């Protein structure tokens, strides 16, 4: 009798302590990973500042005819941390802006665009036009068991500008 009561209290303790542990872990790692990612993004954007990207269908600033244009792509799958999922879950009861997911989307978009530009740079181009961003909801990736993952895919046509 006593043993089973102790067993129950232990299970209850575990019920609370596991999510609490995950939230603390997520608070530390999530913030660290996000800050590091934002620093990394800013640094890489600086390096690619001479690259012109646009979403028009023509070739801004003119394209060099001898270097053939080419399709370039960039994609990223990114997940939030447990704490943000938890906070967003609370916020969803009241409605309103979900700030914690906004940073996730921003990071994913910037990362996908950067990868596309790096792809273009590595092939010797200095501009990308007709850039399209798409959000892919991969089957079962979002919405199940509170896990939040997004996939952002960016693609465009890389070419060499005339003025560079």
């Amino acid at each position: 009798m006593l043993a089973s009561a102790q067993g129950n209290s232990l299970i209850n303790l575990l019920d609370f302590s596991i999510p609490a542990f995950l939230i603390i872990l997520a608070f530390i790692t999530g913030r660290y990973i996000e800050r590091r990612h934002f620093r990394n993004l800013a640094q890489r954007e600086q390096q690619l500042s001479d690259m012109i990207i646009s979403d028009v269908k023509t070739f801004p600033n003119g394209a060099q005819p001898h270097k053939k244009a080419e399709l370039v792509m960039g994609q990223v799958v990114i997940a939030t941390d447990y704490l943000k999922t938890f906070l967003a879950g609370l916020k969803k009861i009241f409605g309103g802006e979900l700030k914690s997911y906004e940073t996730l989307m921003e990071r994913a978009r910037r990362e996908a665009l950067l990868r596309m530009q790096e792809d273009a740079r590595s092939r010797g181009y200095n501009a990308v036009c007709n850039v399209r961003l798409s959000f892919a909801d991969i089957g079962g990736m979002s919405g199940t068991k509170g896990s939040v993952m997004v996939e952002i895919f960016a693609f465009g046509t890389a070419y060499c500008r005339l003025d560079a």
Partner: protein
Amino acid sequence: MIIVNTESIPGLRIRQMIGLVQGNTIRAKHLGRDIAAGLKNIVGGELKGYTELLTEARRQAVERMIAQAQQLGANGVVNVRFSTSAITQGAAELYVYGTAVIVEPEQAGVQEANHVS
């Protein structure tokens, strides 16, 4: 083979439009990656396994589209679009389509005229 998602290609003239070509692939994620992804959902950050999976899948879809275009005698595909659809839980279809074309170098005279206008 020249693949672009614009309607024209700089320095080249489209001699003939052949028609729509497409490529697709359906991929499922596997358990090992799922477990790793589950852990990543706690700490946050990029899911490299899934990124690789999708990159590889898109490349294959593009290759299939190129193969179809080559079969039709094309040497380029313009106006390429990508789309993704969720077939069932845990599997995704990656689909790419575009217009196969035969392109040839622009003649010097034509290029001059374009430049002036």
